[in-house]
């Protein structure tokens, strides 16, 4: 990987519209970008990435990436691999929840306080992954 001066990680959320874990992925990733690791992480818009966004694909090919998927179909990880190369880390929301003993989300939108707390916990795991990737690169 080239030395980019300011090290950043691209975070790619599946944001799956049809499952609550997709919403959780989206919310947790934004927390990392806005609150937990601003300046160290950037978002790569998956729809733009897969629709042929050259800038997004170039970024993902040159910089380390972390994909965050809601379910085992791993759309974000597979799309990243397909268009720009293997992600540095591929996280699965359901595995994070299981490892932390947290309940699976039930809502597609308008998260309640309980699910916001779950999103915060997931975001902390993503932030840890950002640190690990930056430490390795």
């Amino acid at each position, binding site marked *: 990987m080239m030395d980019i001066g300011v090290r950043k990680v691209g975070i790619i959320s599946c944001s799956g*519209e049809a499952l609550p874990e997709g919403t959780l992925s989206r919310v947790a990733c934004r927390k990392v970008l806005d609150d937990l690791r601003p300046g160290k992480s950037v978002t790569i*818009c998956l*729809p733009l990435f897969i629709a042929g966004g050259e800038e997004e694909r170039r970024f993902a090919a040159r910089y380390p990436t972390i994909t965050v998927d809601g379910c085992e179909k791993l*759309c974000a990880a597979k799309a990243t691999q397909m268009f720009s190369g293997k992600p540095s880390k591929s996280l699965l929301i359901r595995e994070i929840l299981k490892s932390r003993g947290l309940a699976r989300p039930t809502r*597609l939108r308008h998260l309640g306080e309980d699910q916001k707390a779950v999103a915060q916990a997931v975001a902390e795991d993503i932030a840890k992954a950002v640190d690990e990737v930056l430490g390795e690169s």
Partner: protein
Amino acid sequence: MDKRGKKVAVMACSGIGKAFGALARETTYELVERVRPDTAVTACLSLLVIGDPEARRLVTENPVIAVDGCPKECAKKSLESQGAEVTRAYQAIDFYKAHKELKPEGISELNEAGQRLAAIAADELAEVVDVLVARENK
């Protein structure tokens, strides 16, 4: 598929970088959950990219509405790349242009104005869903 059982697939871009992606997502939820739960359905847009057969069948065998956040039209392009014929395409930014008093803000969580705008947009799209369903079930 039984022709009379056809539904309208509503696919949102859900862009994570701008409030208009959130508005597209919220409009879609308003449409499939509140306004037309019996005739409108959604699926994960990203499933199309990995060639998920069920998602592909949904968008190739039913009328499709694409709701994008911005003029880059990622949802529409993703649908077309999988052979779907996009029956109607919308950009959430146009909903705002038509209702300037409701400025959507926030990405994880839309502000109140954004949520009201999504509800209005979904009410408007409901008429389109009705027309498409009636046409399919003739």
